[in-house]
């Protein structure tokens, strides 16, 4: 049996006109298959349209507000992570670019020689710094004696001022206490 267009009519959202309704009704009377489908869809539609709205647990909005701070913090962390990763990626790209540049512009032997040359320069630099520090340490004792005397004198002056101030402070406070008792 040909089920078209009746089967389509059953499942389309379009409104049927009076003639189509009569035709459909006649077909349903003689076609048990379409009748079953029509009955099934009517039941499903009823179930869907009559079903109640599911509701969240109480205090949903309060929970949402409470989660805002945490969500904001998470978002900030993610942004920081993304920025750091972008920076690291950019640095890596620059490094890669430099490596490619060096490899493409000079031979491996030249690169090796320049690496050794740079390393030697760095080592020499360290040796120079060590020598400078050593000479400074040799010169310091004579220079220090004057400095130490100056420092000691300064400290003694400071202590004297502090002693005078504290004597004045204690005596002043003692008078106040006496007044309060009276």
């Amino acid at each position: 049996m040909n089920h078209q267009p009746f089967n389509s009519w059953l499942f389309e959202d379009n409104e049927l006109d009076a003639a189509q309704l009569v035709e459909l009704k006649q077909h349903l009377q003689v076609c048990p298959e379409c009748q079953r489908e029509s009955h099934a869809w009517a039941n499903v539609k009823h179930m869907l349209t009559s079903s109640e709205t599911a509701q969240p647990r109480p205090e949903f909005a309060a929970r949402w507000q409470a989660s805002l701070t945490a969500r904001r913090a998470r978002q900030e962390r993610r942004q920081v992570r993304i920025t750091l990763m972008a920076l690291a990626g950019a640095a890596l790209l620059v490094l890669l670019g430099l490596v490619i540049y060096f490899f493409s512009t000079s031979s491996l032997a030249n690169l090796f020689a320049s690496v050794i040359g740079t390393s030697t320069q760095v080592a020499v630099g360290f040796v120079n710094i060590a020598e400078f520090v050593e000479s400074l340490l040799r010169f310091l004792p004579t220079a220090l004696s004057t400095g130490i005397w100056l420092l000691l004198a300064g400290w003694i002056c400071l202590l004297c001022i502090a002693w005078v101030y504290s004597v004045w402070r204690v005596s002043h406070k003692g008078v106040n206490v006496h007044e309060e008792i009276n």
Partner: protein
Amino acid sequence: MSNPETEWLQRSLQGDEDAFACLVERYQNPVFNLCYRMLGDEFEAEDAAQETFWRAYQHIQRYDPQRSFITWLLSIAAHYCIDQQRKRRMPILAIDDLLEETLPDQAPDPERMASQTEEQKAIRNLLETLNTQDKAAVILRYWYDFSEEEIARALNLSTGAVKSRLFRSRQALANQWQTEAAKRAGKERKQDESPAF
């Protein structure tokens, strides 16, 4: 939209968190319901609804006041749930516990509760036979009474695509209902035939 809602929306557009919380309070049920119907689990639905409001809050400046706010919200929720379902297969969980918490306060009528539980289970089984976008289209059509054009806008589909999806879904749901009905009839027959002791 009523006046307080317009005001909440205006204030939310200016970054007022409390005003947006009022909108959350107002629209929590439809958003949660959509998430629950899409995901079939209370806890996942809660997370999805919370995430929907968070996304809406973050992108409130993108909201076009000419459109309905609830349509915009439901569109966000539907897309989020579709993504979630694509990411992982749905776990099967007991629906009985859920109903106790999710359905509105009613008189404790065990028979009514049992029949509702059965009905919810049946709806969930039916919806699970559909793919995610078809399911979203059906939910928006039959729970929210959206037109095909509104569904198309919400799901970023053409109206023709929505029509064919809904047509296919109705057929699939009717077929599934017939299968379930046949199973139920078979079970009842077995019970009737079992000898009484």
